[in-house]
């Protein structure tokens, strides 16, 4: 550190740029006319080369003075001699300048160096999120690994983060966000969830207890082609970006493409619509890759697919009015999860089966997972209820993620305590 300070000073001398090594910023709050006078006197002493960041305004108003190193002693003596108290706001101005330089370089490269400096309160690009995943894995190699479960239509990797403290094929929880690309708060929440899991584990609280016996799988960008498209071309894009023969229209609704009531009422057969179910079930690689993963894993006990907006917690079915056999348990669990969610910021959620709570929808994710035997299959619709809709302001990302996490924990804990 000393060496760099010296070098900076030498460089500054050589290049005639200013350096602030050893400069301090002092704050005086004059409490009497005498004190005010003493401070004003300093303004007249030009040889001290004082730089008033906050000039004297009157009694009670702070006066901030940057004092060069060699003027420190005379200035402090001047103040102390008159009993004027001061505080040192900045001990070394150059240190702050250097820090800022580093920060600016860092942000101009657009890459945070650690998941601790990652900005969770902003929306990020696909590259930034993929970079975040790699950093998280690098920082926590004993807990987190990254799996590639397939490739999207446009050949983007489909990544799933696995959180595991060991074991072989432990019972697991699956969470996916971003299956509908325009629902940006979901991918952003997924990033927050990933960090939260790691933090809980480090602090041995929260989901640390769940990780003792279960694994967590988290797919943050479940529809990367769609996500990229929302960034470059159409912020309101929902579907995948596949092109199937026979139509000029692009994209299949990945939440109508699953093999549960596929093609029945509650999805569209028109490729140009937002709920187009696709030419056949699992036609979309984004969907097929999850299907293959779930089947080959064989031990997933809870499956949560996250969407926005509407503030709802939903369980199957969407394709039929027949209630699921576990309706009572899922309804009660939903009530608990929603209560936990609301407890944080008072956000109101409704809950129920898909078909009774929003509308008939066929070929949906959790209808398929439930029929596979994953009893605790849920869909969330996160904030808000329409005021901003898909365009939820970034400052709501963290509160949304925090409250949703409480509900997720209720579900995960219930799955752990009711193993089947």
């Amino acid at each position, binding site marked *: 550190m000393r060496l760099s300070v010296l070098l900076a000073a030498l460089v500054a001398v050589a290049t005639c740029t200013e350096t602030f090594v050893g400069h301090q910023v002092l704050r005086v709050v004059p409490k009497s006319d005498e004190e005010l006078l003493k401070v004003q006197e300093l303004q007249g002493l030009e040889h001290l080369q004082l730089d008033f960041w906050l000039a004297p305004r009157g009694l009670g108003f702070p006066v901030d003075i940057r004092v060069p190193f060699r003027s420190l002693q005379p200035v402090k003596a001047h103040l102390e001699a008159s009993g004027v108290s001061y505080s040192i706001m900045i001990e070394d101005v150059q240190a702050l300048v250097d820090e800022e330089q580093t920060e600016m370089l860092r942000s101009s490269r657009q890459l945070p160096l650690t998941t601790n400096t990652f900005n969770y309160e*902003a*929306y990020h690009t696909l590259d930034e999120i993929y970079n975040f995943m790699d950093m998280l894995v690098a920082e926590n190699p004993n807990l987190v690994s990254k799996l590639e479960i397939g490739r999207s239509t446009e050949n983007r990797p489909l990544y799933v983060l696995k959180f595991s403290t060991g074991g072989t094929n432990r019972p697991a929880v699956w969470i996916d966000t971003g299956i509908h690309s325009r629902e*940006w708060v979901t991918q952003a929440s997924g990033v927050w969830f990933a960090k939260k899991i790691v933090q809980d584990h480090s602090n041995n609280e929260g989901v640390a207890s769940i990780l003792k016996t279960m694994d967590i799988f988290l797919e943050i960008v479940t529809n990367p082609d769609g996500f990229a498209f*929302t*960034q470059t071309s*159409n*912020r*309101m894009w*929902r579907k995948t*970006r596949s092109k199937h023969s026979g*139509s*000029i*229209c*692009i*994209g299949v*609704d990945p939440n109508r493409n699953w093999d549960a009531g596929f093609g029945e009422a509650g999805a*569209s057969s028109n490729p*140009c*619509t*937002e*709920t187009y179910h696709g030419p056949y079930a699992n036609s979309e690689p984004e969907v097929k890759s999850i299907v293959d993963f779930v089947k080959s894993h064989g031990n997933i006990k809870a499956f949560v697919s996250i969407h926005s907006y*509407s503030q709802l917690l939903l369980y199957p079915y969407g394709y039929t009015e027949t209630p699921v056999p576990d309706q009572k348990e899922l309804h009660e669990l939903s009530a608990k999860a929603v209560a936990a969610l609301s407890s944080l910021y008072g956000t*109101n959620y409704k809950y129920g089966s898909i078909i009774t709570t*929003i*509308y008939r929808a066929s070929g949906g994710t959790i209808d398929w997972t439930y029929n596979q035997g994953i009893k605790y299959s849920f869909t969330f619709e996160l904030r808000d*209820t*329409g*005021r*901003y*809709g*898909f*365009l*939820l*302001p*970034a400052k*709501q990302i963290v509160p949304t993620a925090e409250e949703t996490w409480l509900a997720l924990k209720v579900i995960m804990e219930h799955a752990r305590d009711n193993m089947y």
Partner: protein
Amino acid sequence: PAARAAAVALGYLRYLRGGPGRALELRALRRARRQDIDDVGHKYYLELELEDVLDKDRTVNCTAEVLYHLGNKSSAPDVQVTVQGELRSTEEADQEFYNRIRSLEKELVAENIPDSHGNVPPELEPIRLLAGVASGYLIWQNSTENTKFHLAQVKRVKQVKRSDEDLQFDYVVLLHEMVSQEVIPWEVTVLWHPRRGGRVSRDRRQPPHGPG
């Protein structure tokens, strides 16, 4: 279904009572009842709790009746809304907005409100609220029992200076329809005056989106 009727009632109320200084939102649907009237249609009786987001501490209760006509898809639902109590006065904010826009040298033009990240520059918030008034009209006029519309975004807005006292804004708004999940661009022109309120003078629906 009741929630859809509530959205219609809210749209209607926004059209009648909204403005650049008033941000009415539905806080809760307290009670709902449906009545099937033979040869006429379905009528919903609703008790709603509203709030003006700019005046968060206060909620306003209102009752609404929404009648969806049988068969006749091109006819707007009949809506009646009764607000209990007073909505916060927006006279000052409205006048300020009016004066500000009238004094602009160049006609106001803007896009993407909110932007992709949900940001709305403070000086454009009234423009957005006025789009809510226009959308309220569109939602009221175009809803059926099988649709639920929300204003997703103001894609474009262009002010048109007028020789009379009204302000005129030509909008392209994006309406998100929940059941089909379509996002539909809609051209709509709003005339507004601080004392006379807002009215839609013309509207035209555009096709949902191209092939992709």
